[in-house]
């Protein structure tokens, strides 16, 4: 028995990045289409307030609201916060103020950035004007930012607007990227470190004695930590398999190939891997296989037949 030592902490950069493609409701579509045409729209609520940015439903009564109006591109700062260190994706890459701006004709405020020389140049009540982006796509970023302005507030009742624009947008694509430093934790670090040494090491539950491969640190039946390391395999038995006919991205493997659940000798859980060194249509349940390690590989490239007789069904039926 080997009690698990504290492994070297494994770490790797992990980037989670994806574009969200979102459809817009009629009010949102009109607002974002309007920005493309340097026009700011609001929506009138049932109690005659004008919401900017406009929403599809009244935040108080939940009524469907569709009465669009055009408000000004000048307004007044209602609150602000000076951002000395802009972060990725934010509207400006030099220090700026976050602001909530009540545009002339609106009763609510819009969040955006204000390009100002410093915190001393910003205060609540400051008059500001939209600075339009040079290229506009129908997105909130069509407003590049706000800038200080010397206009006086306009006390006009905003005029109705059809919400119809040439080249109106019906959706947005919002890119998102988050950067992480991934660390897999104790049990998985031990597993990965052993793999680099061409060994497959599971962990045993101190209560039910099951050996989990790969280990995740806890026994899902007993709810206790698995701490005892147990080397398993190297050979094992195919418990079930499938024939893959779809080419995976960035994977240079000839089709079709076989992907299998493999119960390594001594393990109480099947792991999965590719079967090679045998025609795909000859792979079968009970086939005995062993890992094939490539030079410098941190995990088995695939598993190949050992040439032993097939395992009896009763020896692996609990592991399917």
């Amino acid at each position, binding site marked *: 028995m080997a009690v698990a030592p*504290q492994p070297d*902490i494994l*770490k790797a950069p*992990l980037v*989670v990045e994806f574009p*969200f493609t*979102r459809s*817009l409701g009629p009010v*949102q579509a009109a607002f974002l289409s309007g920005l493309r045409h340097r026009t700011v729209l609001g929506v009138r609520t049932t109690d005659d307030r004008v*919401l900017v*940015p406009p*929403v599809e439903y009244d*935040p*108080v009564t939940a009524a469907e609201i569709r009465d669009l109006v055009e408000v000004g591109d000048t307004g007044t700062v*209602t*609150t*602000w*916060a*000076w*951002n*000395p260190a802009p*972060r*990725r*994706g*934010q*509207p400006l890459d030099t220090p700026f103020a*976050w602001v*909530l701006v*009540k545009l002339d004709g609106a009763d*609510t405020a*819009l*969040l*955006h*950035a204000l390009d100002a020389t410093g915190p001393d140049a910003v205060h*609540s009540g400051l008059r500001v004007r939209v600075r339009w982006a040079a290229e506009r796509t129908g997105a*909130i*970023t069509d407003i590049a930012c706000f800038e200080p302005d010397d206009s006086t507030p306009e006390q006009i009742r905003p005029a109705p607007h059809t919400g119809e624009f040439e080249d109106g947008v019906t959706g*947005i694509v*919002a890119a*998102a990227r*988050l*950067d*992480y*430093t*991934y*660390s*897999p*934790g*104790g*049990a998985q670090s031990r597993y990965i470190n052993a793999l680099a040494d061409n060994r497959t090491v599971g962990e045993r539950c101190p209560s039910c004695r099951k050996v989990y491969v790969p280990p*995740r*640190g*806890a*026994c*899902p*039946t*007993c*709810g*206790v*930590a698995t701490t005892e390391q147990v080397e398993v395999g190297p050979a094992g038995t195919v418990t079930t398999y499938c024939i893959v006919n779809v080419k995976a991205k960035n994977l240079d493997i000839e089709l079709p190939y076989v992907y299998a659940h493999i119960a390594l000798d001594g393990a109480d859980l099947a792991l999965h891997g590719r079967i090679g060194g045998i025609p795909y249509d000859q792979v079968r349940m009970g086939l005995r296989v062993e890992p094939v390690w490539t030079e410098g590989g941190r995990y088995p490239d695939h598993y190949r037949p050992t040439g032993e007789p097939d395992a009896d069904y009763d020896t692996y039926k609990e592991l399917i």
Partner: protein
Amino acid sequence: MRPPIRDIAVVAFGQTDHRRTTEEQSEVEMLMPVLHQVLDATGLKTSDIGFTCSGSSDYLAGRAFSFTMALDGVGAWPPISESHVEMDGAWALYEAWTKLLTGDADTALVYSYGKSSPGSVRDVLTRQLDPYYVAPLWPDSVALAALQAQALIDAGHTDEPALAGVAARSRADAAGNPHAQLRGADVPHGDYVVQPLRTGDCPPIGDGAAAVILAAGDRARELCERPAWISGIDHRIEAHSLGVRDLTDSPSTRLAAENAGLFERPVDTAELHAPFSSQEVVLRKVLRLGDDVAVNPSGGALAANPVMAAGLIRIGEAAARIHRGESRRALAHATSGPCLQQNLVAVLEGRQGEDR
């Protein structure tokens, strides 16, 4: 307020030490000791638990389906009766409370955890914002809190020295809390992160987990010498657009507190989930907390803020005060989203005859 149709109490609470990083542990490895702590405190085994509910967010550590891996720690196979919320554990507790109210279960295990260390939590939290008008601007969590802080200053509700005072009091009180991440009177208030908020006005970034056991009626009395009875609990939410809200007020907190029966009798303790110093100003006002109430004796979220667990910890800390006989009636508050977007209020009580 109508009293709950069934008496339900917090009978055990446990939490990890909250640390800047737990890179040597996976989520389940971080969580398991806390689960065992509350089970040991009650003498229950995982198989005795009627319902399990957890709160976490995979976005924090960038680890897909981490909540299913965390379930290994409660012995979820063969399948148990469980649920998960992508919210602070305080809302998992609310779901568990309703489950116990139905009579389907007599005990519930509630846990939550957050590992903020692998990512940049300020940026991660932008992904919970309105995806059409707000998220594309990437306004980070400190920036949004700073807009609220400035609104409070402009309205005359606070000023920067008062905010620094909230931060200093919280860290000084946390000196007695061995689990806290930022403790003691010597925590510097620092430079502006986003003006008017300085480093000291912001919560520490770190990893941690917490667990609570709920039990109903006589079962609670069997499991705990002095149960912390939930006499009321409710949660409410604001309109989602920041510009629609009055950031100096929190009507959702006030309504939740009314529905939880907070204002019927005074409390002696309040554990408020105010990750930013300025948010305590709002909460004290709407919850009508006087100087005679011990606010955040644990140090609160300014001393340890494991995201997704910090709200559940407020309920746990308030309950633990009752368990220890240090409180008779305590308020616990949890929040979620930017600028106190959503708020949960629970009132916990010790009972005559169950005193030590």
